[in-house]
């Protein structure tokens, strides 16, 4: 049946894209009071970082709506993936606006309802969007107070507000609520940002712990993820995939698949999809498609990758430099050289990439698990050659992201197929596709040459980072002669790589903290003392002392046989220090992590419980890349294809976890990532302390542990 096929071989027209007038949503929400925030320069920085294609809009970046029942809706382009801003943002809004917490609702990640946002990553929501949003809300509150005073017929200094009700200070019965002020009105207020929000001492809701606001929806199965939406006539699309990266399709024969009941084929150039109302039927039909490929693969695998990286022609840049390396060398009593390796690691969120595309008139709408709804909208608009006003992207709940869902290939696929067929199309990747198309955390090499002087101070630090990413690469220690060089190259990886929770910093912190440990051991001094002696930053010293106390650490030179390891680092504006206790089975090479203590200084903490949960999550997740997680591959052929050959942390690994968030009246910082950066280093150092063997490669699999132990003997 010809009608059931969808072919489009011609190039799409390249329509110019244009900005959407998002003020359209005013129509969608009806009456009430709208307040727009202009976030200006703050977001520009973020967007520039992210190399967004789109210029940052100059009009506004977030807004709140106050309905006539007093309900406050805060709309931001960020998404919720488990990091908890759906809980902490209403805390900020309610507290700043003096309205009950229950009255604040978040609308997130909808390109039509929310103002532009570059994406949810880098632990930036609270530290970057937060302060400006608060300043804007502070001003909104003043506007409301003025309106209230006018309504009550008194001067604006004579009124105050509590729980969303404005009242005359000396006559409390004379009052009007935010809701009443908003009633029957359609008021738009644009605010200039003058960052003067409340002082820490005035916080009532911020700084208190709240359980996840979405808890009930998630324990009842009612929370909607992209794959949970259903539409009449919706078809699952299973897409023909190459056997490896670097393989190109030569020919495909879909005739066998087409014979199957209810199956149709959609083809748009190299995109070949089998469609069926049932996921499994589509999957079964896809296996009937015969395809031929030609191969052009890189000659590299998970064993040779580090050599490959060092030999690959790369560009380098000096990230940071102070003093002079030659001077550092001559000032050093002894010099230690090391090379550290880190493997490719997958994001592996429990929810694979998923997207539902459908047409609304001539508009393509996509519900997608994406960390960057606006970036996805841009991508779809580009790929389809249609204007931004013809694309709407909505990110519902995400089943984890960790950086992996900044890539949105599945959303483009859904958009292309729905445009082609006119039907609602669900693209739900299976686990194998999720591993295949993941943008892995890059494998990397770190080379360090460092030295100490007679007094036990670090005199030399020459650090070379190959392909890890520069985040976290400059030394946190106080070294007069230090240099950090970062190497990068296009096409060094045989497949996609990308940002993975605290990008770059896991590898850099592992290498740096291992090296510090080597130096302390060589000097025969306690590794905590050695760190404290070589640090100047008070906040770093603060977290180290805090974690030592939390753990009950007593000094000893390594290896002490106790299996204690220390590591500290800096990420997303926050300071972290960890101490771990491990047991190493010398016969099997298996590491059991018994205890991990962590202290974190993230400035003011809006939701302490939420932050502790993030921290514990970082520790559990970090055990994976430290101990087992490693993508196996030959060229573009990725052997890792499911959890059967990619071991995530499990319940029996659970160490005793002790956490401490240092209470600080300082600007709030990121909390979703810092806690993970020390996990490689802290366990490597603990293994050394236990058995005297140094691990120069992550993950520290039993074979590698045994090898390292053999070298000690």
């Amino acid at each position: 049946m010809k009608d059931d096929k969808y072919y489009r071989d011609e190039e799409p027209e390249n329509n110019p894209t244009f900005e959407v007038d998002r003020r359209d949503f005013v129509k969608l929400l009806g009456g009430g009071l709208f307040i727009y925030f202009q976030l200006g320069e703050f977001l520009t920085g973020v967007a520039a970082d992210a190399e967004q294609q789109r210029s940052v809009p100059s009009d506004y970046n977030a807004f709140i709506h106050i309905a006539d029942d007093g309900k406050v809706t805060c709309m931001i382009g960020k998404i919720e993936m488990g990091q908890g801003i759906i809980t902490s943002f209403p805390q900020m809004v309610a507290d700043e606006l003096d309205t009950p917490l229950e009255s604040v609702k978040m609308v997130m990640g909808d390109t039509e309802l929310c103002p532009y946002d570059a994406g949810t990553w880098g632990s930036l929501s609270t530290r970057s969007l937060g302060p400006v949003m608060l300043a804007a809300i502070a001003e909104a509150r003043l506007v409301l107070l003025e309106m209230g005073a006018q309504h009550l017929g008194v001067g604006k200094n004579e009124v105050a507000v509590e729980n969303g009700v404005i009242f005359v200070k000396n006559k409390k019965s004379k009052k009007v609520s935010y809701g009443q002020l908003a009633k029957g009105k359609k008021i738009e207020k644009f605010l200039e940002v003058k960052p003067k929000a409340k002082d820490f001492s005035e916080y009532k809701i911020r700084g208190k712990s709240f359980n996840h606001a979405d808890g009930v929806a998630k324990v009842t199965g009612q929370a909607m993820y992209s794959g949970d939406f259903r539409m009449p006539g919706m078809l699952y699309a299973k897409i023909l995939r190459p056997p490896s990266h670097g393989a190109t399709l030569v020919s495909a024969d879909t005739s066998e698949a087409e014979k199957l009941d209810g199956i149709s084929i959609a083809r748009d150039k190299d995109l070949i999809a089998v469609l069926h109302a049932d996921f499994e039927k589509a999957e079964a039909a896809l296996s009937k498609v015969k395809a031929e490929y030609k191969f052009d693969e890189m000659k590299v695998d998970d064993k040779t990758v580090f050599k490959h990286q060092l030999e690959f022609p790369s560009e380098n840049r000096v990230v940071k430099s102070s003093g002079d390396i030659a001077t550092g060398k001559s000032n050093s009593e002894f010099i230690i050289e090391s090379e550290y390796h880190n493997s490719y690691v997958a994001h592996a969120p429990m929810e694979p990439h998923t997207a539902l595309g459908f047409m609304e008139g001539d508009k393509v709408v996509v519900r997608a698990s994406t960390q960057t709804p606006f970036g996805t909208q841009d991508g779809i608009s580009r790929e389809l050659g249609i204007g931004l006003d013809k694309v709407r992207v909505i990110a519902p709940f995400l089943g984890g992201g960790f950086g992996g869902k900044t890539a949105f290939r599945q959303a483009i696929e859904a958009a292309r197929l729905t445009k082609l067929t006119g039907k609602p199309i669900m693209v739900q990747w299976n686990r194998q596709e999720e591993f295949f198309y993941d943008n892995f955390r890059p494998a990397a090499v770190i080379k360090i040459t460092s030295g100490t002087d007679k007094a036990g101070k670090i005199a030399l630090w020459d650090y070379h980072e190959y392909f890890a990413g520069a985040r976290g690469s400059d030394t946190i220690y106080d070294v007069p002669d230090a240099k950090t060089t970062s190497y990068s190259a296009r096409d060094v990886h045989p497949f996609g790589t990308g940002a993975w929770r605290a990008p770059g910093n896991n590898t850099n912190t592992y290498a740096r903290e291992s090296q510090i440990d080597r130096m302390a051991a060589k000097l025969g001094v306690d590794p905590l003392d050695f760190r404290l002696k070589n640090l100047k930053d008070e906040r770093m010293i603060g977290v180290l002392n805090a974690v030592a106390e939390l753990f009950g650490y007593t000094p000893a030179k390594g290896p002490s046989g106790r299996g204690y390891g220390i590591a500290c680092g800096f990420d997303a504006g926050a300071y972290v220090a960890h101490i771990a206790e491990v047991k190493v089975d010398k016969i099997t090479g298996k590491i059991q992590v018994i205890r991990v203590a962590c202290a974190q200084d993230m400035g003011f903490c809006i939701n302490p419980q939420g932050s502790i949960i993030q921290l514990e999550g970082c520790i559990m997740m970090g055990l994976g890349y430290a101990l087992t997680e490693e993508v196996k591959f030959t060229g573009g052929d990725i052997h890792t294809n499911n959890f059967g050959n990619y071991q995530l942390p499990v319940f029996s690994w659970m160490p005793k976890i002790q956490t401490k968030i240092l209470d600080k009246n300082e600007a709030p910082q990121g909390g979703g990532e810092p806690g993970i950066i020390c996990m490689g280093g802290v366990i490597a150092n603990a293994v050394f302390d236990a058995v005297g063997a140094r691990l120069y490669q992550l993950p520290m699999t039993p074979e590698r542990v045994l090898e390292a132990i053999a070298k000690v003997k």
Partner: protein
Amino acid sequence: MAETIQFELNGKKVEIPLEKNQTLLWALRINFNLTGTKYGCGLGYCGTCTVLMDNEPVRSCGILMEDVAGKKITTIEGMSVNGKLHPIQQAFVDHDALQCGYCTPGMIMNAYGLLLKNPNPTKEQIVDGMEGNLCRCGAHTHIIDAIESASKKMKI
């Protein structure tokens, strides 16, 4: 006439046409629109698709519909009664035992199966029983705490 199968789903008798090779996971998600049961790996590794079959936790991605005939299936949607959360659900909320929440339905169903068999588990037994359920967000400690406290509450 196409062959049909009957079984009990969350306390109600249901009947659907028997499809060869259809798994319980996708029958739930597509035929019954019970989307609380999640796809995570499709091969029995992750546990996000866990439901109860005759009070035994099973991985619905590996159960063929022909083997469901006459069985009693309970999914996450069947756990709360008249809007009142089941004690295990309540404990997950109280202990904040989730982040992204994608593993949560499977965790709760597996824990329920565990407690049905052993209402008085030690912490080690809980850890052991939950071992095959993966959580990428690392909510593990809270999940164990929630199950421990639910086991105590359920006795009352």
